[in-house]
């Protein structure tokens, strides 16, 4: 459904007065595809470019190079309203993504007004409908975001995203700001909605347990590039890239007595303005050899598994 080819986004970063500007490659040649009805999980540390990809797909930022195809059609050929009908976001912080001065009903119905769908009279019905679907009681319609709990706010954000019945929803850390008991409610809701409306999700998260639970396929990002991608089960059972292995090892599952994991990663996340030569992961990689320091690894694709490493494990 969504095909991303060699996507690149370069920001010009000022180095200080009179020092000129230098390029920062936030997304550096990323190719990805999301099938209809699939949930693609995108994981990586902060600053690796995963949210930039979301912004490029939503066209909140313009790409520097590459292409994004939606059902075979170039995204840049669509107008912004056409795109917004088909792809909608749910962001991390429901405290920041809802206008504090608008009532819940007005926030949820805004897409209808923007797209001028049907008559104004029909909007009320649509809002009631979607509020019931996401589990908000009707009386909240006249409330303001500050009167709602975190979970309710995130439900409002989901309702707003779904009222136009998009085909794809980009969930950028949808539960990171929520408490665990509320997180599970929102995750259950997202799973229900996917089944009922045949939605496709791009799920961006740093919580690997959440990604394992939700995603059908996982892509691991490091410093602007996808370093490994595979079916969720495959990647969790047999990770090939050393970075994926380190990420999985650092998940703290609630199992007492197991102690803290040793990830063997250095602490230093490289400066993306000045990425290391060769494989960008080599300064932190426990298995780096001479070749990793000099030559960037070639992408390797074997029966649906993608990995970019000189020494991939099995």
């Amino acid at each position, binding site marked *: 459904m969504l095909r991303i080819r060699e996507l690149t986004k370069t920001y010009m970063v000022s180095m200080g007065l009179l020092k000129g500007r230098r390029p920062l490659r936030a997304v550096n040649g990323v190719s990805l595809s999301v099938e209809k009805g699939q949930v693609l999980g995108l994981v990586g540390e902060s600053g690796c470019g995963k949210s930039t990809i979301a912004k490029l797909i939503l066209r909140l930022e313009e790409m520097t190079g590459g292409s994004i195809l939606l059902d075979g059609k170039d995204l840049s050929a669509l107008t912004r309203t056409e795109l917004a009908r088909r792809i909608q976001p749910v962001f991390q912080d429901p405290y920041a993504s809802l206008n504090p001065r608008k009532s819940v009903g007005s926030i949820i119905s805004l897409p209808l007004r923007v797209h001028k769908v049907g008559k104004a009279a029909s909007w009320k019905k649509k809002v009631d409908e979607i509020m019931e679907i996401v589990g908000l009681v009707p009386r909240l319609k006249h409330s303001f975001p500050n009167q709602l709990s975190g979970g309710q706010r995130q439900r409002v954000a989901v309702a707003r995203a779904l009222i136009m019945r998009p085909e794809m929803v980009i969930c950028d850390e949808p539960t990171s700001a929520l408490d665990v008991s509320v997180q599970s409610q929102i995750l259950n809701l997202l799973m229900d909605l996917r089944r009922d409306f045949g939605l496709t999700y791009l799920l961006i998260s740093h919580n690997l*347990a959440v990604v394992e639970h939700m995603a059908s396929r996982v892509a691991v990002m490091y410093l602007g590039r996808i370093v490994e991608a595979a079916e969720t089960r495959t990647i969790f059972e047999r990770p090939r890239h050393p970075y994926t292995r380190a990420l999985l090892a650092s998940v703290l599952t609630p*199992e007492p007595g197991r102690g803290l994991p040793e990830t063997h990663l250095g602490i230093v996340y490289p400066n993306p303005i000045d990425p290391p030569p060769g494989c960008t992961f080599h300064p932190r990689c426990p298995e780096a050899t001479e070749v990793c320091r000099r030559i960037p690894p070639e992408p390797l694709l074997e029966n649906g598994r993608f990995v970019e490493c000189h020494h991939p494990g099995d």
Partner: protein
Amino acid sequence: MTALLEVEGLHVDIALAAGLLKAVRDVSFSVDRGRTLALVGESGCGKSLTALAVMDLLPPRAQRRAETLRFEGLDLRKARTRRMADLRGNKIAMIFQEPMTSLNPCYTIGNQLEEALLRHRNVPRKEARDRAVFLLEKVGITAAASRLRQYPHQLSGGLRQRVMIAMGLMCGPAMIIADEPTTALDVTIQAQILSLLASLQKEFQMGLLLITHDLGIVARVADRVNVMYCGQVVESGEVAQIFDNPLHPYTQGLLGCIPVPGKTRPGEYLGSIPGVVPTPIGDLKGCAFRNRCAFLSSACEAEDLALRQISAGRAYRCLLSPETCAQNLRGRAK
């Protein structure tokens, strides 16, 4: 041997226009040298206020009451402002969640590190600087001497949190209170910071009061756990008891909410706790969790629930018998 920090019957009340908010109610715990106690709970359960109350750092509107509040035999209830200031950063150090907001952007790292030692120990500046370099290296920061001249914004989140830890250790405290020390960090760095904290704790035999909402961290780091809900401790015990055999319906519910790779089936419904946390204002009678509890009975409303001790160091706040609780847990698993 007496405990390092002893807290009994701690209450924190906050006067609001809507009434008296009983933010912390009858919280008791103790922390021994070299041991870790975790206070775990969701936002608003009073875990951070408990820590602030111990340190006497509560906001002006909040009132603290306690039956016992003793650190190394010193009664903190009677300690004057000056005496408390001598303790903070000296004997008891605190590590906060947000290294960006808890470091002063206008001063260099070196300045802020040395401050505690200069304030408490009256040592020459050179000695303070040496200690700062020593500790920065200890927490795994390279080129420590040159870092002293840097400002907080020049460091990454992980490095800033390491600086915070080093700062806490400057005076060789007996006790560290860490309030969500890794929440702002990436998972890979979180594991490293926690290992670091655990090894330093062992090396210096410090007591650690760890405040977090992350059950994964609690399971891996804590020795003892207090689960908090709505200002109260609803369950306490050794870490293995809490995770393997949770008794209180809230603890059971909380553990059922988190996906665990290899345990929960992908795509399956996660457990959830319906409803919202009540605001503890006004007359509070009965169980605070009753409006969200699946095992509600009429007695839950009427009775004032005390913490039930079932063995040494193991207690919970519920009317159900331990056998019924264990049965409920098996029912959830199905």
